[in-house]
């Protein structure tokens, strides 16, 4: 068991001026499930591969526990990795695939068999041990890849989008299985995904990356409630947060002629052009008389339990798309006008230029 620490870690590809991973500082605690998330090309996979030893670290350090592993070959790092395409050895049986690392570590045959049997039992693979990967379904292959990592009893699991080759339904069920398995084994895990739902549901903490730079690390709820900047605000949450251009006013953000109340910290810090963020569920439907912002309904998505209204704010000069979550069966129709408002403590204020969070 061990923690993982990135210290100013950098990966600069030869011939490129901008690092793929730029000055990454990240501490992952012992037994923690850390998810690296971001759009493609954000450096999340590269960060993971740096930890695995498949990618050179051009600057800074990576520690596992107290061991500096920055320049150790992968085999000396005591890690296991699950690849996106599983990377099973096509010429070996499931059992041989799982036992390969043990064989390389010169573990005796008996113990090898025993550990493979254990992992197979855990992953419900006992009936497939003698099969070749070709004769397995996608989900089974995925489990073999997991099994290959588990048998090693490594200090750290590295998982590189292990669910992205599964169909949607299987992905959801496997998601919970992996999370449960990780909790049971208590092995520090670094998990890479581009899917923010996966990140939110699986991670103890989530690290959001963009353009090789770490944007924010926090628990899923904190990320949701207090995004550190515009990017995180827009990336986390589905449907995404409403982000509306506004101007700083006295204790309120001005969207055209409408005023959105903001909290005290924000009102003291905001200057000039700001961006106001409101989660779809933070809107309240109100009336014109109470000073609500008008939204013209374009689409209503009924989900049964609740519904999402997609519309445009009819505010002069700033035609923004607005998403509002409402109770189901409100009988709203396309073209209707609704008026929405919100509370100061639900309003996220960002500096438009720097993207930094200004509210509390």
């Amino acid at each position: 068991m061990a923690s993982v620490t990135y210290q100013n870690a950098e990966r600069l590809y030869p011939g490129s001026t901008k690092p793929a991973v730029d000055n990454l500082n990240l501490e992952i605690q012992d037994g923690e499930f850390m998810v690296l998330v971001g759009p493609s090309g954000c450096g999340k996979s590269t960060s993971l591969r740096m930890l695995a030893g498949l990618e050179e670290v051009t600057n800074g350090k990576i520690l596992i526990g107290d061991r500096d592993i920055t320049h150790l070959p992968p085999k000396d790092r005591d890690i296991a990795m699950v690849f996106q395409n599983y990377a099973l050895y096509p010429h070996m049986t499931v059992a041989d695939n799982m036992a390969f690392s043990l064989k390389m570590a010169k573990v005796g045959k008996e113990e090898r068999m025993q550990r493979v049997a254990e992992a197979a039992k855990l992953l419900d693979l006992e009936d497939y041990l003698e099969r070749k990967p070709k004769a397995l379904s996608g989900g089974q292959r995925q489990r073999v890849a997991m099994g290959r990592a588990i048998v090693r009893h490594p200090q750290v699991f590295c998982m590189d989008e292990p669910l992205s080759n599964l169909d949607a339904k299987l992905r959801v069920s496997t998601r919970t299985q992996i999370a449960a398995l990780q909790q049971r084994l208590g092995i520090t895990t670094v998990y890479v995904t581009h899917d923010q739902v996966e990140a939110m549901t699986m991670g103890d903490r989530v690290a959001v990356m963009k353009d090789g730079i770490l944007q924010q690390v926090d628990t899923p709820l904190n990320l949701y409630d207090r995004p550190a900047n515009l990017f995180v605000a827009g990336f986390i949450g589905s449907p995404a947060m409403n982000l509306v251009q506004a101007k700083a006013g006295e204790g309120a953000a001005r969207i055209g002629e409408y005023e959105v109340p903001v909290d005290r910290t924000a009102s003291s810090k905001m200057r000039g052009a700001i961006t106001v963020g409101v989660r779809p569920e933070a809107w309240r439907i109100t009336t014109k008389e109470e000073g609500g912002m008008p939204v013209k309904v374009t689409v209503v998505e009924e989900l049964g339990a609740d519904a999402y209204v997609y519309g445009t704010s009819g505010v002069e000069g700033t035609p923004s798309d607005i998403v509002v979550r409402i109770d189901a069966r409100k009988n709203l129709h396309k073209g209707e006008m609704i008026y929405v408002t919100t509370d100061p403590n639900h309003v996220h204020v960002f500096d438009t230029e720097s993207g930094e969070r200004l509210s509390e």
Partner: protein
Amino acid sequence: MKQVSTKSEDSASVAEPPPPPAPRRGGRTYEEIEAVNSKQRKVKLAVGTVGLVVSLYVVVTVFQALALFADDIPRLLQGVIAVIAGVGGAALLFYFINMVVEGFPRRFSEGVIPYAFLLPAMLLIGVMLIYPTVQTINFSFADADSEVYVGLQNYIDVFQDPDFQESIFNNILWLIIVPAVTVVIGVVVAVLADNLSTNGEKISKSFIFVPMAISFVGAAAIWSLIYQYDPPGDTQTGLLNAIWVGLGNLVGASVEPVAWLSVSTFSLNDILLMVIVIWLQAGFSMILLSSAIKGVPEETIEAARIDGANEFQIFRQVVIPQIRGTMITVFITVLIMVLKIFDIVYVTTNGRDGTNVIANLFFQEIFRTGDNGIASAIVVILLIAVMPVLIYQVRHFRREETER
């Protein structure tokens, strides 16, 4: 297929309804073939038969004319005429065969068409391959002039002949060394080239592949010059002797030039001849194996690296098993070629100094000694020796196909 058959029954019972506008897919579809009514069919049968006979006659006549007036027609023109008559004739032939078959009653013609198209090739294989094979086996039981049957006498003579024993021994030596070395060199070069820069890889691969373009006779001639012997004191024009003598002088020993292809100690001359074939075939081996190595998923190698394998273990236990099929393919292809090895030996030593091989021995028996019986027996033995390898190869290819 089912649809087609029911359709044909329908239309047969309703006395040829007008053809539905069948979708055109480039060629003639079954629907179109079916749409041909009986009158059209008779016309097709007649025109097809006449066309077949006429085009066959024309093609044969053209080639006969070429043979007759070979001296009067310029070479280039002969070539052009031959190509036009050959290719055009084949096209016409197939066109008319198709027409004739379409002229048959429908249900009959559907089954016949594939065979009709295979027929010319089958005929050629029969005349050029199967008939001679049968005849050779037949002659192998007859005397030198193929007049009287002598039973197994030829085989008994052959097996007691020291020349034959030597040739068999040499052939086995070739079989053991050449395919294995060719595959190993192919793998090594492919792996090394794979680690070069893109341009470096291209250039080095080209160099190794170039000998593939040289004929066996040409290669044998080139290497004869490399193995050339000049008397001591003369300038050594043979590369190997030049190096040998030059190096000898360098270390101060007086070294005599060696007539390399006459040194039968440890079958050295045999091995020197094998070098020529390996030089020729390494490119072929490398190209196939290189593409196989590139087909090994990078992720499996990374997985093995994380699983704790060192580079050699990765190569042995992850890469090699994944290119095994290609290695076997290359091995067998070279093996079959080596079984039939002739040109190299014929051009360089002609079997002197214990370098003879079966194919060359056969050549000597039939053209120098003029003994059809013995020569036939020798090639029949060669044929039997190749057979198991061929069968294995066909099976291997089938297995590869199904696994793909």
